[in-house]
């Protein structure tokens, strides 16, 4: 869970500061909170198994550890709120997803503390309450974050801005559908509906809640379809993005959209946090070079890492099914042999990379200056 949400926490810090036109509130505290969550997140895994009989000592330790994570997470939530406090807030699609994230994820965090209490977990365990909880953190946190990231960085990745109207329609359908689907599942769980069943008994008082949940799911589906349409629409006749469509604060907005394949002709001189914003306020709005113009050494493209991953992927199925089917040893040994063969090829074949000549970079720089 924590490893899913931490990258998106970074994104939210970017989105909130960019669209509030303020630097991130409590940057140092944010970094410490991230590290603390990463550290604690590795040692709370037994909170999934409070009811298996670990004993009171282990249960207590893991319960306290789990609830402790709420502290750094709370620090982050408040810092994001304080980032917006007094800022010039722009509300567009990317920011909507980020704003929607705060209440949704906080609800998920609260039910997380409830589940983290080992005593109460004996009631909640394996009910729809758990389903509701983890969808609030994973959808309300990670999926909202991914949508926010897509709207924020789409122009940087593909050179075209996603359509704002369609983006807002996506958000409202999805946001409304999401809460309709999962909020009621808390109550279904408390009423005793177990998880991991694809049908439930009728006339147990669970029917209405499940119908409401299904309606919400369809609304989320509509939101996703609108988003997919938005991608096609943008690719065909979307607005061309400038290098810096959001009046950004960080380095990626100082290069063209999409960026050149070598990213920077010269490493930029970074004078502090939010380096591009510093140059906008105190410099001429462009990043000054931090090194003289010289040839750039680049690695060659290669398919080998992908092929290695493919071999391990196939071998993974062999490892899982070898206990039941003898023929899957073929996958196991075949996949491993293929991956190791790829490593040998990579070791035997010299790969010096190549240089982009200075002259080409000079030309690119002059093109930008015009």
């Amino acid at each position, binding site marked *: 869970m924590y490893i899913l949400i931490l990258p998106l926490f970074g994104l939210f810090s970017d989105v909130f500061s960019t669209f509030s036109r303020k630097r991130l509130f409590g940057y140092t505290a944010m970094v410490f909170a991230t590290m603390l969550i990463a550290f604690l997140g590795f040692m709370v895994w037994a909170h999934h198994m409070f009811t298996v009989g670990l004993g009171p000592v282990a249960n207590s330790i893991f319960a306290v550890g789990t609830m402790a994570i709420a502290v750094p997470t709370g620090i982050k939530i408040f810092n994001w709120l304080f980032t917006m406090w007094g800022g010039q807030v722009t509300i567009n699609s990317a920011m909507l997803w980020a704003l929607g994230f705060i209440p949704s994820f906080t609800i998920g965090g609260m039910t997380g503390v409830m589940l983290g209490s080992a005593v109460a977990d004996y009631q909640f365990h394996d009910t729809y309450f758990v389903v509701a909880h983890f969808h609030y953190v994973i959808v309300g946190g990670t999926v909202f974050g991914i949508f926010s990231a897509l709207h924020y960085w789409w122009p940087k990745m593909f050179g075209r801005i996603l359509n704002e109207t369609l983006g807002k329609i996506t958000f409202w359908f999805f946001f409304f559908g999401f809460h309709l689907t999962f909020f009621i599942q808390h109550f279904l769980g408390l009423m005793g509906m177990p998880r991991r069943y694809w049908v439930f008994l009728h006339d147990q008082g669970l029917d209405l809640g499940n119908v409401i949940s299904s309606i919400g799911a369809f609304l989320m589906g509509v939101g996703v379809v609108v988003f997919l349409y938005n991608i096609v629409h943008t690719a065909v006749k979307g607005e061309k993005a400038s290098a810096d469509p959001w009046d950004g604060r960080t380095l990626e907005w100082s290069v063209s959209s999409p960026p050149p394949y070598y990213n920077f002709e010269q490493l930029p001189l970074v004078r502090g946090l939010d380096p591009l914003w510093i140059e906008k306020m105190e410099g001429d709005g462009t990043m000054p070079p931090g090194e003289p113009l010289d040839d750039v050494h680049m690695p060659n493209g290669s398919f080998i890492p992908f092929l290695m991953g493919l071999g391990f992927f196939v071998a993974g199925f062999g490892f899982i099914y070898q206990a039941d089917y003898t023929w899957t040893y073929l996958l196991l040994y075949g996949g491993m042999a293929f991956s190791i063969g790829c490593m*040998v090829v990579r*070791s035997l074949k010299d790969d*010096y990379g190549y240089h982009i000549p200075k002259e080409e970079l000079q030309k690119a720089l002059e093109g930008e200056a015009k």
Partner: protein
Amino acid sequence: MSQEHSELFPDVLPAEPEKVTLEGQNKFFGLWFFLGGETVLFASLFGTYLALKNSTAGGPSSDELFGLGLVFLMTMLLLVSSLTSVYAMYHMRNGDYKKMVLWLAITGLLGIGFLGAEIYEFAHYIIEYDFNFRSSAFGSGFFALVGFHGGHVLFGICWLTTLLIRNAKRGLNLYNAPKFNTFSLYWHFIDVVWVFIFTVVYLMGKVG
């Protein structure tokens, strides 16, 4: 080798040829990250082993199985191979390719010796004691931990062989020096893990 990479093949090698290029520094850095991941992996295998070591399911216990004589021999083989890889790196920094290859070859032979002894040990347990991966939880823990280490030794030997064959005829340069250096670092790590296995599995298996 094209003209534009001539900087990788100087006539006189610098003092630390493995750390001159950015590529070399990145390899060094990357391998440390890899070893960090490996440490966590082996730590979990150690934890599993310690939790399961008394669950013998009526089969032989660690005290009945282990013979410290063979394990001492294996420990010596691996510790000496770590020392010989240090000699190899010493000669690499002096730009003496032939001596480096010699010491690396000795390292590889010691590794093969270790692996042979380990295969003999495993076969002994499996055939004489009917003690294998599926015979008890202790067996699963033992073969997962020690076998995984053995797999790392095997991988290291294959890695070293590939390196030696590939570079047999072209001497030392700034392109391949980092490759030898990362291998040496990996080999030290395998050695350190074995020191822990020797202590935690074999010595502690004998006394308690």
